[in-house]
């Protein structure tokens, strides 16, 4: 199926799901302010489904909206879901943020986003067909992920400690603390983020090096074993900070230490959320 056919199918399914009241809202993408952009859209009326589109620019991870009170108020949420976004739904289910009965997933087979060049994440994608769905649109495609998924992380790992420090200092110097990384992230779902707690103020809100390091590292650590690699934080960052380098480093570590990758199995127990008596504690001084 081509983009046009998938768009038609999405509209047809959305219309029926809304008309039969199987869902209260369809979360999808609509044509954006330029031909190279789309924006998220919430369709509640079957007559409005023509707004829905599917093209090379459906970047936003819509799973972010599943946890928002304003959207939940519409009733059961139907969501158009490509593979990478879909992994976030797995995470939200694992962490009891949503229940299966609250959502209806229209999975879409995705050949990769971005034009003329695909996004970096799409080159290493192994979920062109989503893992979790109530129904699937599109025919399965056989696109193998490229080699060298962690090549950029390995480059940083090979640096000396001083070089790494300098690299990150330069990158974090740019951080303006707009929290786009947090807001766009479907797994950053704390009702009260640690930076919003001010009695005491755990993390400096200033964008000086201390505040910026604290913020970016706390966020990264908190996503260890949870980040599903949708890359939205890096795409949203207005200052082009390579946030996925940090997230990918943690993905790599979790994979090596626990043979676990987030976002593939809603029944799996995430390693950082569990504990065993026999766990190695030798790292504790």
């Amino acid at each position, binding site marked *: 199926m081509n983009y046009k056919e998938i768009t038609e199918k999405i509209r047809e399914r959305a219309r029926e799901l809304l008309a039969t009241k199987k869902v209260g809202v369809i979360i999808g993408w609509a044509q*954006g*302010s330029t031909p190279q952009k789309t924006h998220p859209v919430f369709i509640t009326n079957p007559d409005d489904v023509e707004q829905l589109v599917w093209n090379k620019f459906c970047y936003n991870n819509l799973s972010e909206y599943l946890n928002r009170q304003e959207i939940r108020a519409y009733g059961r949420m139907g969501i158009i879901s490509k593979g990478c976004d879909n992994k976030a739904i797995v995470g939200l289910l694992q962490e009891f943020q949503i229940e299966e009965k609250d959502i209806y997933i229209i999975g879409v087979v995705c050949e990769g986003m971005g034009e003329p060049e695909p996004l970096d994440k799409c080159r290493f994608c192994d979920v062109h067909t989503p893992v979790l769905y109530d129904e699937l649109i599109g025919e399965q495609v056989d696109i193998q992920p490229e080699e060298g998924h962690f090549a950029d992380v390995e480059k940083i790992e090979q640096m000396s400690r001083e070089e790494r420090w300098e690299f990150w200092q330069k990158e974090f110097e*740019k951080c*303006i*603390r707009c929290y786009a990384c947090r807001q766009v992230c479907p797994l950053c779902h704390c009702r009260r983020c640690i930076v919003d707690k*001010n009695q005491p103020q755990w993390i400096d*809100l200033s964008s000086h090096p201390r505040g910026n390091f604290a913020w970016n590292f706390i966020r990264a650590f908190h996503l260890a074993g949870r980040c599903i690699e949708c890359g939205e934080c890096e795409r949203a960052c207005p*200052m082009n900070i390579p946030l996925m380098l940090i997230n990918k480093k943690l993905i790599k570590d979790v994979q090596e230490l626990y043979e676990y990758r987030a976002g593939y199995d809603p029944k799996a127990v995430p390693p950082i959320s569990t504990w065993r008596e026999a766990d190695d504690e030798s790292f504790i001084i």
Partner: protein
Amino acid sequence: MIIQKDKLFALLEKLKSGGKRIIAPTKRENILLFSEIGSTDEIIQDYINTRLSLKGFFLPRSEPILEFRIHQKNVEYTTVLEENIKPTVVFGVRPCDAGSLPIMDKVYTWDYIDEYWVKRRESTIIIAVSCLDCDEACFCTSLGLDPGSTKGSDILLTPVGNDTFLVEIASDKGKKLVEDNAELFAEGDADKDSILAPVRQKLGKKFDLSSIQPWLQENFFHKFWEQNTLYCIGCGVCTFVCPTCHCFDIVDEGTVSGGKRMKLWDACQFRTFTIHASGHNPRARQDERHRQRIEHKFNYYPKKFGDTLCVGCGRCVRYCPVDLSILRILTMISQLSQTGSQTSRAEEK
């Protein structure tokens, strides 16, 4: 009057060796930002606009305003101001960004004189450069500005080809700068209108500004907000890249023995912006927070200060992670006001 590029750069070098901080568009870690230059070689000249506006040189992202020390029950403090004020020349400012400064002067000199803002404004010279190109996010012409407007500049330069700039003096500060360095400037003229004609045509006029405020005034509860702005994710990108968003927060940073009182950018799109100590949030929904952004810029601020709080630089359109384009919102409002579509109070949510 005209100036050659080599003479212009010589002027900047001269001002620099005279003790002024020179700020210009430069590439920093692959993004174009205004930053202090060591040499004029660092200046980038081929650009639509910088990622951040020059707002941060008057209202820094974060800065200490007070230092305090605590000894048992005594608190000593010292204010921090003078050392943060540096004589500065900003070169390469686009007319939209320059135009934002007089608009912001109004709020910072209204009931309270914000010394930080005012002293920095006084000690800064703005050398703006007219735009010969724009992108699809630019909309200065829809706000009464122009790729060659002098509002907020001390000197406006318009590139006229052959590494030559047409010079327009736009303030007393600009006049003095030219008089003090008269040897670098030369007699000459150029047809600015014909040079700017192509970019003006490309910009066009994207909506009718006069229709926006009356509609906002009447449609606070319109379904429009829920339908078109609820997908805002509540980050601070639009406000932080904006040259006219000026809200700040005050927080203390430190330990039991002392610390600093910091002034930080804040954003009305953050949930915590309006949350009360009781836990009640008068802007509980994200569409309400986004409505605030539009109402403040196009209704409340013009009503109070006579200026629209937007210069059409297009940054928020370019960098919004979810493409919630203010240009699209304003265009839709302009169209709605023409069709006379208004919800009655009975239809309000």
